[in-house]
């Protein structure tokens, strides 16, 4: 299954913050889609506004790609720091491209006179388009796909577009001697439109598909993207968007919004989620639906603000005092991010419980080309009832779920209280009522585990003996690596719903002789959860916690070691 060089190419752009690497990556990715190929763009960057050393990896392929590959076929370097920083990923086969004005006569480097050409094109602003033109020439393409991408990017401003088109053309001309150096076939464009979306956009679109009408959040990387994307849709989709004064306010606003009949989302990262703990517990007490997007980055403390990790599963699981139901969904791709965000609203509304969509920086900040995401045929059903004069918010119901009324809709009163309360929502210290209310709340675990749950997905033979288990964003790299190194009788179980464990999951674990859990953290949080909930025996854990995602190559190397075992 190893791809031949002609069908896949990894291009890395390296430079400091402020160079516009992410815009360059976006334009180039759009050109790749216009050429009928597939692409994944992975951004890794430092926590600063200018300077530092960042990189953008474009994985270009004749087939859809969803996983990070750390091989570097070609790197375009904007400064000397980038050369040093990317050196570890480069091999003898890597082609380095740089401006002689920056690198002088560095041995083996292909010269691209970027400063000179961009000055001629109108200034440093046009360096990205020059670079794109040059790279496209190396792919052996005519300028057309790139011009399509530039029109998509700058189409609203005629003069800016014309200057960028000219700059791209000059870069393309400059690459004449290297035409087709990395020949990539131009394919007939796929039938229908391919979208280029990052994980944040997918979560935001999923929230809208789930009927989200309210978002209150406090900015924090990498969770802010979802808030920004939804802010742009406030008018078009009739959405209330508010930047809260802190995360405590954000979650309490979210609960107030659901109480009044809105469908609210809060988006945050680990540190902000810590502040939301009491609000999450309130959500459990008043039996409110709530969707929380928890975008992981490495902690503890401020940690690595712009990097990735799967280190917050346990706070998602345990945060908030007292005992109450909740669900945790961890998407592994933009498609799943969309589906999980939408389903989280259905799940929260149906179970009157908090649902946490657990993502990470790698998933949120990476772009892929994909088919338009599947929208439901009808808007999601809402479970709000018109109240009657004898309405009681916490009346007993099947699976502990009471009909949910809202103020201003019906003839009854809707009373919710964070103190232990009776069926009417009035404070009580009656021990019998206490037991009944605890049991009522915990009864909601059953539908969360069964009909509302998202089952795990098995990749590989059903008669496996060895089972790799992963969750969230690690899935595509594991699936691809396993295709490259197909171990005998080995399958991969991708877990999307991490809590409560779906009924189907235990059966998969029971059938395995050797379970290996793969996680982007240092202590194996999901392995601990699996052991605690199922008593299963976990033979090995493959963990990574340097702040970066697993690459296909890393998983493949672990699989080869496993093969030699």
């Amino acid at each position, binding site marked *: 299954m190893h791809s031949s060089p002609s069908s896949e190419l990894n291009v890395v752009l390296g430079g400091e913050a402020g160079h516009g690497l992410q815009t360059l990556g976006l334009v180039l990715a759009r050109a790749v889609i216009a050429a009928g190929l597939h692409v994944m763009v992975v951004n890794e960057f430092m926590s600063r506004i200018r300077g530092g050393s960042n990189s953008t990896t474009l994985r270009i392929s004749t087939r859809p790609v969803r996983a990070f590959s750390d091989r570097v076929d070609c790197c375009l370097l904007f400064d000397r720091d980038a050369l040093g920083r990317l050196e570890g990923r480069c091999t003898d086969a890597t082609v380095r491209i740089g401006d002689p004005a920056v690198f002088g006569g560095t041995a083996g480097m292909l010269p691209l006179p970027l400063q000179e050409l961009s000055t001629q094109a109108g200034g440093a602003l046009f360096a990205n388009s020059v670079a794109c033109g040059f790279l496209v020439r190396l792919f052996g393409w005519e300028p057309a796909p790139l011009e399509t991408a530039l029109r998509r990017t700058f189409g609203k401003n005629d003069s800016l577009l014309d200057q960028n088109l000219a700059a791209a053309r000059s870069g393309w001309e400059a690459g004449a001697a290297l035409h087709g150096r990395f020949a990539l076939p131009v394919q007939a464009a796929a039938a229908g439109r*391919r*979208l*280029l*979306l990052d994980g944040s*956009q997918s979560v935001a*679109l999923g929230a*809208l*598909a*789930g009927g989200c*009408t*309210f978002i*209150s959040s406090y900015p924090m990387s990498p969770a802010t993207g979802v808030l920004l994307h939804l802010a742009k*849709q*406030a*008018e*078009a*989709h*009739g959405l*209330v*968007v508010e930047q*809260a*004064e802190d995360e*405590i*306010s954000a979650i*309490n*606003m979210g*609960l*107030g*919004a659901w*109480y*009044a*009949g*809105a*469908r*609210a989302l809060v988006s945050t990262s680990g540190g902000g989620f810590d502040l939301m703990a*009491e*609000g999450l517990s*309130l959500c459990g007490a*008043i039996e409110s639906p709530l969707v929380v997007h928890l975008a992981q980055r490495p902690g503890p403390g401020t940690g690595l603000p712009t990097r990735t990790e799967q280190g917050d599963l346990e706070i998602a699981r345990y945060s908030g005092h007292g005992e109450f139901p909740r669900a945790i969904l961890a998407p592994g791709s933009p498609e799943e991010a969309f589906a999980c965000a939408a389903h989280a609203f259905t799940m929260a509304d149906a179970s009157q419980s908090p649902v946490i969509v657990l993502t990470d920086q790698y998933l949120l900040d990476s772009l892929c080309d994909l088919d*338009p995401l599947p*929208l439901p045929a009808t*808007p*999601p059903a*809402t479970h*709000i009832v018109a109240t009657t004069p004898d309405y009681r918010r916490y009346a007993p119901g099947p699976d502990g779920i009471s009909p949910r009324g*809202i*103020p*201003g809709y*019906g*003839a009854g*009163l*809707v*009373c*919710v*209280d*964070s*103190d232990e309360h009776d069926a009417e*929502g*009035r*404070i009580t210290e009656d021990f019998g009522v206490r037991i009944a209310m605890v049991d009522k709340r915990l009864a909601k675990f059953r539908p969360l585990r069964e009909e509302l749950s998202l089952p795990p997905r098995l990749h590989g033979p059903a008669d496996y003996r060895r089972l790799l288990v992963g969750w969230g964003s690690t899935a595509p790299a594991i699936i691809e690596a396993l295709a490259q190194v197909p171990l005998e009788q080995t399958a991969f179980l991708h877990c999307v719903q991490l809590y409560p464990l779906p009924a189907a999951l235990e059966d998969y674990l029971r059938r395995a002789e050797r379970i290996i859990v793969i996680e982007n953290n240092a202590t194996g949080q999901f392995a601990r959860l699996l052991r605690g909930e199922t008593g299963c025996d976990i033979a090995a854990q493959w963990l990574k916690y340097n702040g970066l995602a697993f690459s296909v190559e890393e998983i493949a190397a672990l699989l080869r070691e496993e093969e030699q075992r």
Partner: protein
Amino acid sequence: MSEHSWVRRDCDIAWCPGCGNYGILKLVGETLAELALDPQQTVLVSGIGQAAKLPQYCNVHFFNGLHGRALPPATAIKASNPGLTVIAESGDGDMYGEGGNHFLHCIRRNPDLTNIVHNNMVYGLTKGQASPTSRRGFVTPLQVGGVTLEPFNPLAVAIALGASFVARTYVGNAEHARGILQAAIRHRGYALVDLLQPCVTFNKLNTYQWFAAQTAPLPDDHDPADRVQAFARACEEEPLRLGIFYRQEKPVFEEQLAAYTDDARPLYERQVDLARLAATMEAMG
């Protein structure tokens, strides 16, 4: 509507005999009745503490949430359904201490809600510690040498932030208090009512007698449109002035939300427009 009994008659009330909260409960019930509010469209939001139990004793929709956190859900309830009348009430520790940050930013947002703060200058439910409004020198089981912190001045802070309605009243002057509560609920925008009350169990300093002696109405010539004068009078401690210190018309939070630009319906009546969402996805990608 006048037939609605806002105050419940059949419940076990958790307040001490003689507590100022009884008077506030009666005042709130009378005010809501006099304003002829629709009980189906009125929501009380409170935090935690003795004051925050008030909605329990009313026939009204209520959201009795977390200590210090009444204002965020109150703001969101109003933003989600602007047709509702929303009143956020709690004690001084809840609103000015635990919820201090929300107090500041709620004033900045200016949602159309009424914020009633029962101010007895002490913590009751946790048994007698200092509150943000306790006077210097106030001795408690925790502040054994007396309070050394500057008392929080909610009126001066609210006026400094450009709050749209800032008033103080005293439960012992029922007629005054009713008038202030009515004006606050009628006011379009955020309205702060700092409502002085004694705590008969834990505050032996700021008693009914003390409040009667230490409070006085704002002078007849007070101009609530004059922010500088309002600030100066809010800073006076002897006597503590009662009345509407400051009032101004300013844009209301929920009316400026893009969600209501073309659509006046409350959020619960809305559904996602799937065709529009498909177009959004296309434009985004």
